[in-house]
Structure formats: structure tokens, C-alpha cells
């Protein structure tokens, strides 16, 4: 119990990272006026990247940052611990949240009933707070609490979609998501019983003694299944297509960029920092399991995406495939492979964010995202579809875009392991992406505008600028990957070094 030695704002940043969106959400619920709530939400989301970037800089220069909540020293109290991995993730989540907010003003006004718009912003900020909290916390049960805060607000965000199928999608996601979270809690319970602590650092030290017991291995299994439900790994992805399709455009763009990534981070934290890579990938058959499931995700989901009539649904299946790439990077269990996985977390968020934002612009003008009604829209809305094309090329993995950077690292890691067939499969699955992106580009640009698309005009500037920011980032970070891949490499090294020095 300390009397309080923190005097500067820089010391309080970890707490502000989570407390500000929570306060913003409570204010939005109190003030029921939609444009005031949008303003509060935008202010808060703009403050988030500032805090996250300064935290990441602090970590890159000075090592992990620790913040003891309530003055209680860890492991007795809850600790917020930021190192390179979750600093990177915090920057990603806050930047995506900030870019989407100016876009949201026009999009939300068009897609969501007037009396619910203030509550949309409240739920958005709750989701932001939950995701940031899940990334920043150093306590196992605190991660569950924030996981459920973000998940419950996500269910509400999805259910606000205009179609009645959004309700069924939200319900399905609720059932599966809650099962996943409860599996995580079971795993944490077993770990708590065996090690006696909930703090990550303390757990990493104490688990060494009990690592070979059945309870601890069962805990790993429960946590893996729980987190794989949340990150939508291949057979557990069933909730994702319906959820992404039914949700409003802003919600889809935000959730697609951030939700599954934080679940991947938590899995990484348990695999590398707490259990240790040697135990998880050496003694247990995690590598073949994740490898098979990732390959299944990459191929099966991409193939299903080709046959979809709704472009949002197509991109949702594409997301399942891209998550396969991320878990492939984890399964390779080498520093380069893990770098590829972590940098693909960031890159996929940029690509999918740009794609879903572009689709939101299209939905604003023509009312839906079905591929047959989008004939010729490229000629009527060239800037919007231009961003779509750029992000789509990035998804395929054209050199010079971010998608190429991640696949390069993954292929390099597979060749380093001696698995030439894996590098070949990575390239082959990219060809599937060519087919479904090519379908959209062909219908959008090479057909004459008909029906609804004939009167469509370009999207408003408030929506175009965020879309093009993300699309331009796809190219910028693809040409010069020093920033993203460099930090990802440092994160991978930090994970392999582990918490037990």
C-alpha cells in the first residue's frame, strides 16, 4: 500500500488508456443526443493513439512499463504491464478506433435508427475500452473481465444491423463467444489452483515447478480452445461470417480489425510468456495441430469466399482465411515465423479495415453490398473502389503492399524449417484471393452501371479520407516495413525470451 508517488501524467497513462473510453461510454449513455455523443466518442478515440504511442515509445526505449492499480503492488494487486507485444497491439487498436470515428458520423446516421445512435457510440467506446484493457492487463482474470466487456458490447453492436438476420448472428456469436470465454475461465481456474496466483509474471515463475502435471496441461487445452473460439480458427469460426455480414459497416470495420487480434495476443501471452515455447511447441503437439487447422482455414475459407454473393460475407470468409495465416506464423514457432504472424496481425487490420470501410461507402450510396447490384459502381465511385482495389491487391499479396510483407516472412520461416511445401501452399492460397477479389473488381469496373448504381455519387469526404488513409497505409507500410516489421521482430524476440529471466 503506497501513499502515492505518481505525480506526472506520463505515469498515469496505462490507467487512462482504459478509464477514458469507459468514462466516455458512461457519458454517452447519460447524454442521449447523437451528435454530442459522436463528438465525445471522437475526442476519446483521438486521445487513445496518443496514449498508446507514447506507451510504446516508453517501452521501446526503457523496457516494460508496469502500473499497479490502487497502489497495491503486484502480485497482490492487479497490474497493467506493457511490453513490446501488447504495446504494438495497443497502438493498432487505438489507431483503428481513431480512424473509424470520423467515418462513423455519416455512416451511423444512415444505417442506424435515430434513437439508438447515442447508444451505438456508448457501445463502441465500451468495446474500445474492453479491447484495450484486454491487451494492456497483466492479470489473468482481469483479461477475462475485459474480454467479456468487449464481447458483450460487440454483440450489441452487431445486433444493431438493419437486417433481422443481424439478430440471429448476434445470438449465435453470443452463445459461441460465451462458451469460449467460459473455457478460458476454466483454464485460468486450473492454473490458479496449481500456481496460486493470477499475475502473468508471477505465474510464469511459479508454473515451472508444476508444468508437467495433468492439471496444467488441461488448463492449456482449455485456454487454447477458448481463445480459438474467440479468434475464429478454422472449425470454430462459424459465428464470424454471419456476424460480420449483419453488423453495421462501422461495427464490421472495427470488429474485423481488432477483435480477433486481441484474442491472438492473449494466446501468444499464454503460449510464450507463461508456459514457454519449449514446453508448448517441444513437448506438446501444438505445432502439427495449429498447422493443419491453419492450412484448412487458408484453403477452405478462401474457397467458400469465392462463391459468395454478398461482398461483406465474402470478405468475412476471407478474414477467416487470413486468421489462418496468423496462426500459421504461431505454429512455425521460430522468431521469423512469429514475426510474420505478428506483423500480419497489423497488416490484416489495415487491409480489412480499408476493405470494409470502402464497402460501407458503397452501402451508403446504394443501400446494400450484394455483388450483382454493384455492377459498374467503379465508374460512378472511382475513389471508393480505388481504395478497394488497393486493399484487395494487398490482400492478394502483391509486392509493394503490406500483404506481401507478411507472406514473405511466413514463406521465409517455412523454408528455414525445411518445409518447402508449406511455402508453396502459402503462395497457392494467395491465388484463391485473386479469384474472389478479381470477381468484385470485374463486376465493379468492367460492367455498365445499372439500376441503383446509375445514380450513385462519390461518398462524402468524411468517409473517403479514413478509407484512403488505410489504403495508403497498406502501400506505405508495404514499401517501407521498417516500422511495423521491426517492432514485430522485437516483439517476437521478447516473446521467445519469456518472462522468467
Amino acid at each position, binding site marked *: 500500500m*503506497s*501513499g*502515492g508517488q505518481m505525480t506526472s501524467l506520463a505515469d*498515469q497513462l496505462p490507467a487512462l488508456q482504459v*478509464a477514458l473510453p469507459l468514462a466516455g461510454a458512461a457519458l454517452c449513455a447519460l447524454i442521449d443526443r447523437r451528435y454530442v455523443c459522436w463528438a465525445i466518442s471522437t475526442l476519446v478515440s483521438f486521445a487513445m493513439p496518443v496514449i498508446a504511442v507514447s506507451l510504446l515509445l516508453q517501452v521501446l526505449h526503457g523496457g516494460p512499463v508496469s502500473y499497479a*492499480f*490502487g*497502489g497495491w503492488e503486484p502480485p497482490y494487486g492487479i497490474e497493467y504491464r506493457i511490453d513490446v507485444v501488447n504495446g504494438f497491439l495497443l497502438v493498432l487498436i487505438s489507431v483503428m478506433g481513431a480512424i473509424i470515428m470520423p467515418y462513423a458520423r455519416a455512416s451511423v446516421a444512415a444505417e442506424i435508427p435515430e434513437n439508438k445512435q447515442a447508444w451505438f457510440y456508448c457501445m463502441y467506446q465500451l468495446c474500445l475500452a474492453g479491447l484495450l484493457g484486454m491487451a494492456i492487463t497483466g492479470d489473468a482474470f482481469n483479461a477475462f473481465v475485459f474480454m467479456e466487456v468487449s464481447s458483450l458490447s460487440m454483440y450489441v453492436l452487431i445486433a444493431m444491423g438493419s437486417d433481422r438476420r443481424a439478430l440471429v448472428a448476434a445470438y449465435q456469436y453470443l452463445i459461441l463467444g460465451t462458451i469460449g470465454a467460459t473455457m478460458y475461465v476454466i483454464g485460468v481456474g486450473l492454473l490458479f489452483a496449481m500456481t496460486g496466483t493470477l499475475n502473468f509474471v508471477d505465474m510464469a515463475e511459479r508454473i515451472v515447478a508444476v508444468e508437467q502435471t495433468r492439471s496444467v496441461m488441461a488448463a492449456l487445452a482449455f485456454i487454447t480452445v477458448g481463445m480459438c473460439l474467440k479468434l475464429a480458427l478454422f472449425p470454430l469460426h462459424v459465428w464470424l461470417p454471419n456476424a460480420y455480414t449483419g453488423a453495421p459497416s462501422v461495427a464490421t470495420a472495427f470488429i474485423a480489425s481488432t477483435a480477433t487480434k486481441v484474442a491472438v495476443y492473449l494466446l501468444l501471452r499464454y503460449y510464450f510468456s507463461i508456459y514457454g515455447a519449449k514446453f508448448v511447441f517441444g513437448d506438446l503437439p501444438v505445432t502439427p495441430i495449429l498447422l493443419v487447422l491453419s492450412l484448412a482455414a487458408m484453403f477452405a475459407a478462401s474457397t467458400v469466399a469465392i462463391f459468395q454473393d454478398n461482398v461483406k460475407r465474402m470478405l468475412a470468409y476471407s478474414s477467416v482465411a487470413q486468421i489462418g495465416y496468423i496462426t500459421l506464423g504461431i505454429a512455425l514457432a521460430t522468431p521469423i515465423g512469429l514475426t510474420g504472424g505478428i506483423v500480419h496481425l497489423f497488416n490484416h487490420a489495415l487491409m480489412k479495415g480499408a476493405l470494409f470501410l470502402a464497402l460501407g461507402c458503397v452501402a451508403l450510396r446504394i443501400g446494400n453490398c450484394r455483388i450483382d447490384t454493384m455492377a459498374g459502381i467503379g465508374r460512378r465511385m472511382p475513389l471508393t473502389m480505388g481504395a478497394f482495389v488497393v486493399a484487395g491487391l494487398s490482400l492478394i499479396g502483391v509486392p509493394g503492399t503490406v500483404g506481401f510483407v507478411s507472406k514473405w516472412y511466413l514463406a521465409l520461416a517455412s523454408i528455414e524449417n525445411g518445409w518447402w511445401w508449406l511455402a508453396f501452399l502459402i503462395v497457392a492460397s494467395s491465388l484463391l484471393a485473386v479469384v474472389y477479389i478479381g470477381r468484385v473488381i470485374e463486376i465493379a469496373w468492367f460492367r455498365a452501371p445499372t439500376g441503383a448504381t446509375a445514380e450513385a455519387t462519390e461518398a462524402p469526404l468524411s468517409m473517403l479520407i479514413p478509407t484512403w488513409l488505410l489504403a495508403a497505409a497498406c502501400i506505405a507500410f508495404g514499401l517501407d516495413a521498417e516500422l511495423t516489421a521491426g517492432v514485430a521482430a522485437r516483439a517476437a524476440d521478447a516473446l521467445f525470451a519469456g518472462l522468467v529471466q
Partner: protein
Amino acid sequence: MRLDVVLRVVTKLLLPFMVVFGFYVQFHGEISPGGGFQAGVIIGAAVILYAIMFGLDRAMRVLSVSVVEKMISLGVLLYLGTGFVGMLKGGEFLNYSVLEHDPIGGQHLGITLIELGVLVTVAGTMIAIFYAFAGRGR
């Protein structure tokens, strides 16, 4: 004479005891099972019992939907406000010891305010959920 006279009379007799018991659970949370969430549910249950017995309209005249929705956010803001005050006085977020001149008094004040915030939010949430379900299809 209406058939539910017994229920109505017993409810009217029970309601004040329910509310007092709720506050008892709230303030004794430090030394016996209890605290904000349990007390909020008990007080919410008291209002819900009143709404079930005497009709949703009369309950809404006592606590309207907008009041209940404001209660939810005010409780959260009280909780966060206590945390921010702790931060402004030089401690970490939610550090109670710095709220007053001595740590023990500070802890006492901090926990009381936090639990009050939880009580208001949880009671408001329970009543709001009931209003939302019972008010549909009217």
C-alpha cells in the same frame, strides 16, 4: 373484493423491509457476504415486485425509464470519479489511501463510494431490464 388482496397487502408490508435489508447488505459488505452487486439486486427486486403486483404503469410513475437509465450511467461515473480523484491527489487510479489524510479513513471512504456506485448501477440495470422486457408488446 379482489382475489389478490393477500398478495397486495403482504407486498406492501414487505417492500420497506426489502429495501432496508438491501441497504444492510450494502453497508455490511466489508465484514459479511454482501456489497454493491447483491444490494443492487435486492433493491431492484423490490421495485420489480412492486411492478409485478401493482402494474408497470404505477411503477413507472415512481421510477420512470429515463430516471433508471440515468441511474446506470451515474453509478459508473461515480465509480470512475472516485478513481480519477485518487489519481488527481497523486496516487494511482483507484488508490483509496490518498483520498483522506490517513490511509485507513481513505480506504473506508473509497470503498463506500465505490460500492454506492455499484449499487446505483446494478439496481438501475435490473429495473431497466425488467422495464424493457415487460414493456414490449403493450
